[in-house]
């Protein structure tokens, strides 16, 4: 099944995910008159990220856990790729569904490698295949296998633990991955990185990912579709982020999405949609005087220092450059870089903390691409605003992305 998504064009052949269908799913707890989940009917297309959001107690986590039978539905059917989830045992089912939990929930007495290898072990993979898979996955989530494989979870930072959690969820290459507030326990900057990485992993793998979050911004950033639930898991709106922002179904959705939906659209736009500014660059070891002369001619007051692989390593002012004979890779502290896939929201965030009121954009392999500054972001915001105004005037919004 092929779908167009907000972030990427997906070919049917690339999709390794499976479609999930919920049909009139009900979860009623004993002793409670009102059902926690009341007749939820929903189709989650293969290869998409669907975000479940809603106020606490709305049944979003319950709905998620019914998909891997951590919670058994009271009635209704759930199918994955057309197969009823009750056709195999819960343990069997869960081995073929990735599960990622807040903070990673790694087993503290197992090494990183052993944590990732849990599901392959349960599936009876041989040692060699498992070991290769573990290394491949650690690599995928950006952890050097040689360095991290044999560490214990407590030897990792929160962000790294969460990466291992994602790797564990992907271990057996399941078509479907369930995530329960995966990035809730890390600081905002790490969260932003992890989100970007999840998106880039998803661009590669095209799994079906169902992700619960309470953070509407996260939902807008990650989701191909967002499911907004109200109490009893009644669907308030189920649509793409663009449509939800431009045309909220009712007051509940408007309230939930919150004020400043134009600002929220910043989470949909990415840095590489802007035109980058250029600035003077210099290689490490180049003559300082020449570099400064070039910068003066171009009217720049700082120089981006690049290493041999064209990766920015420092961003000194002209005065700092002239302090040494040749261009040095210092000071590193003022270096503010942004991945070209970062959202404009992240870009503003990053620039606010920077000394240069702008940020260096890096592309694949961290290579230098250019600069973004406030003016460019503001200009983009204005164009978004115009588009949003047209949308509320009844004009179907064109894809903003």
């Amino acid at each position, binding site marked *: 099944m092929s779908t167009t998504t907000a972030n990427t064009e997906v070919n049917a052949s690339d999709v390794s995910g499976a479609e999930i269908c919920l049909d009139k799913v009900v979860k009623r707890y004993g002793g409670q008159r009102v059902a926690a989940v009341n007749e939820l009917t929903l189709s989650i297309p293969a290869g998409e990220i669907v975000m479940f959001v809603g106020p606490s107690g709305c049944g979003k986590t319950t709905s998620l856990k019914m998909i891997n039978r951590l919670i058994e539905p009271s009635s209704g059917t759930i199918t994955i790729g057309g197969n009823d989830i009750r056709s195999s045992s819960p343990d069997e089912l869960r081995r073929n569904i990735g599960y990622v939990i807040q903070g990673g929930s790694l087993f503290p007495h197992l090494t990183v490698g052993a944590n990732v290898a849990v599901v392959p072990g349960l599936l009876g993979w041989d040692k060699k295949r498992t070991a290769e898979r573990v290394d491949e996955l650690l690599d995928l989530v950006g952890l050097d296998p040689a360095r991290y494989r044999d560490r214990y979870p407590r030897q990792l930072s929160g*962000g790294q633990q969460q990466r291992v959690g994602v790797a564990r969820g992907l271990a057996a290459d399941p078509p479907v991955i369930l995530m329960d507030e995966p990035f809730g326990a890390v600081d905002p900057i790490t969260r932003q990185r992890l989100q970007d990485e999840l998106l880039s992993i998803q661009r590669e793998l095209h799994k079906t990912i169902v992700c619960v979050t309470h953070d509407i911004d996260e939902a807008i950033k990650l989701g191909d579709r967002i499911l907004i639930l109200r109490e009893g898991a009644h669907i308030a709106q189920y649509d793409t982020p663009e449509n939800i922002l431009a045309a909220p179904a009712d007051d509940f959705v408007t309230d939930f999405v919150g004020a400043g939906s134009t600002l929220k659209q910043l989470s949909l736009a990415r840095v590489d949609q802007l035109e980058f500014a250029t600035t003077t660059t210099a290689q490490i070891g180049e003559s300082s005087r020449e570099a400064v002369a070039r910068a003066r001619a171009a009217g720049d007051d700082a120089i981006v220092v690049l290493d041999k692989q064209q990766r920015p390593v420092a961003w000194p002012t002209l005065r700092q450059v002239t302090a040494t004979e040749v261009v040095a890779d210092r000071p590193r502290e003022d270096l503010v870089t942004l991945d070209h896939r970062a959202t404009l929201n992240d870009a503003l965030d990053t620039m606010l903390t920077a000394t240069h009121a702008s940020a260096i954009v890096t592309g694949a392999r961290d290579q230098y691409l250019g600069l973004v500054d406030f003016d460019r972001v503001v200009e983009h915001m204005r164009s978004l605003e115009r588009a949003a105004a047209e949308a509320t005037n009844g004009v179907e919004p064109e894809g903003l992305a």
Partner: protein
Amino acid sequence: MSTATVEPETDTDSGPTAEAAAVRVPRARVISRETVTMIILPPVLVVIAFLGFVIWRQTAELDSVEAQQLRWSEIQQRTVEHILLTLVSAVLVVVVAVPLGVLLTRGRLRRAAPIVVGIANAGQAAPSVGLIVLLFIWFSSYPPFGVVVSGFWIAVLALTLYGLLPVLRNTIVGIQGVDPTLVEAGRGVGMTSASTLVRIELPLAIPVIMSGVRTALVLIAGTASLACFIDAGGLGVILQTGISLFRFSLMVTGALLIALLALLIEWAGRLLELATRPKGI
């Protein structure tokens, strides 16, 4: 100034480009200074005290009763008996209390946990001499299945009952103390209930369980001194002889050796605790 992007670099460093070698990696297993002290100090103290005893024993003038009781072969035999009583009881305690504790954390049986812990509590509150002697009288009057049970096994039974509580309670508390999200994570990735128990819950509960085992070991080692009342041997014999014949030297020797052995056993328990603690926690 630390900028927005510098922090995640240290946090997320990974590729060959990262310069995280400077970031100190915390050790997988942390041993506190207190633990180190508790591992080095007791054996040193025991050795010093025992050397003192040896010197006194070789130089003191002893009457015939004392000399008889303080023969090295006698001391050795009593010590071996004492250790045997303690170890056999401790093994039985673990064999009984750990599975029982695990059962009492599963499903419906969870509700029975307070009752069983209550009974074990009562068992420990009962005076230990009473427990040993009562069991002895009971078994000698009504031999179970007509088999005559030796004093040794009666003492072991009493000591086992006596040492059950700390292990039972710590097993329950240890398993209940495992982070429920880890259990759910185990189930969520497809582990069966049994393998979650064996691979997640038990290993994580081991430090708590082992500290219960250590407590039980010390309790049993001390209480085993009473085994002499039912002719089951142990270092209590020397102490008991000293009391009944009013030989001060025997009393002190018995008490000292029991104390030293208890210290050594507690120390061994600590080593065991350290050795069984899973890496990473």
